[in-house]
C-alpha cells in the first residue's frame, strides 16, 4: 500500500568543542596578524604551511619551531572549477590552485582571482589579497584570494620537487 510508512527521518545533531591544537594555533594566530606562519619538522626539516594537524605525516613526528614564510609563492598545479555545487560562494568558472609559498615545502590550497581562468598556468607567481584587517579571524579565509604578481614565471625545476 502506497500509504504505508516506508522511510523514517532520523536526523542526528551533535555539538562538539573543536580544538585546533597548539601547533596549528600558532599558524592561526599568525593569520590574525596578517602573517603566514608554518612549522618545521624536527626530523626531516621540511616546513609545513599550513601545519596540517600539527604533525609530519612522513616522519610521524610532532612539528617543531615556527617558520614565517613569504607572502609570495608559485602555482604548482591548479584546476578550473566549472561545476556548481551546494554551498558554492564564488562565481564559476574559477581557479583553485596549489600554491607553494617561498620558504615552505608544502603547497597550500587557495583561490586565484583577478586573472582570466584561461591565463592561469603552472609556475605563475602569486600574492595574497587580504580582507580588511577589522574582519580578520583565526582563519585562512582572511585571505580572499591570491592574484598574479606580474613577476616572470618560476622555472619548472624550482618547484618540480613539490608536485
Amino acid at each position, binding site marked *: 500500500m502506497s500509504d504505508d510508512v516506508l522511510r523514517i527521518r532520523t*536526523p542526528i545533531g551533535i555539538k562538539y568543542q*573543536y580544538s585546533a591544537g597548539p601547533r596549528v594555533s600558532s599558524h592561526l594566530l599568525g593569520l590574525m596578524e596578517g602573517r603566514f606562519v608554518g612549522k618545521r619538522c624536527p626530523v626531516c626539516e621540511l616546513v609545513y604551511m599550513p601545519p596540517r594537524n600539527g604533525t609530519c605525516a612522513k616522519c610521524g613526528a610532532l612539528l617543531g619551531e615556527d617558520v614565517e614564510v613569504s607572502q609570495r609563492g608559485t602555482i604548482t598545479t591548479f584546476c578550473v572549477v566549472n561545476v556548481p555545487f551546494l554551498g558554492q560562494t564564488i562565481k564559476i568558472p574559477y581557479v583553485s590552485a596549489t600554491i607553494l609559498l617561498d620558504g615552505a615545502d608544502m603547497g597550500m590550497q587557495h583561490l586565484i582571482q583577478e586573472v582570466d581562468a584561461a591565463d592561469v598556468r603552472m609556475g605563475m607567481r602569486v600574492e595574497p589579497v587580504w580582507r580588511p584587517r577589522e574582519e580578520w579571524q583565526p582563519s585562512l579565509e582572511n585571505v580572499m584570494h591570491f592574484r598574479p604578481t606580474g613577476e616572470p614565471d618560476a622555472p619548472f625545476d624550482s618547484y618540480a620537487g613539490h608536485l
Partner: protein
Amino acid sequence: MSGGTSEYSIAADGSFTAPLELSYPYKRTVGPILSRFLTGLRDQRIEGTKGSDGRVHVPPAEFDPITGEHLTEWADVASTGTIVTWSWQPAPVEGNTLQHPFAWALISLDGADTNVLHAVDAGRADAIKTGMRVTARWADEPSGSITDIVCFDLTSGSPA
C-alpha cells in the same frame, strides 16, 4: 555543519577552540517488517511478530532469534503494559519526547514477550516502581515513528 571561527576562544596552551555542530540528516528505509509496525503506530495500533517458539516480539523482530528464519506471523498487543525496570532521567536532552524529568523504562506490553524501551511520565522518581501498570500516550500528529507514542502514563490505581 555549523559553528565556526567567529565564536572562538583560546585555551591556556594557546589552542584555538570553537563550537562545532555536526548534523547528519539521515533518512532510513525501514523494510517490510518495521514498515508494518510503524504504520500501525501511526494508526495507534501495536503489533509484534511471532517467533518459532511462540514468543511475540515487540518491537517486531525481522528474523527469528533462534532459527534465523524470516518472521511473517503477526500478533496484536495492547497499548497497556507493566514496568519491568526503570531509571530516572533528571535532565532531559535534545530529542527526548518529554522535556521535563521522566523515567526511562522497559515495558512488557500485554500480549508481548519482549520489552519495549520508552519514556514514562511519572512526575517524580518516588512515584514510579517496577511492576506498575502503564498506558501509551499517543501523539496528536502521528508520523509513523516510535515517537508516535509520546510516552507511557502510569495507570491510575496502579498496584505498586
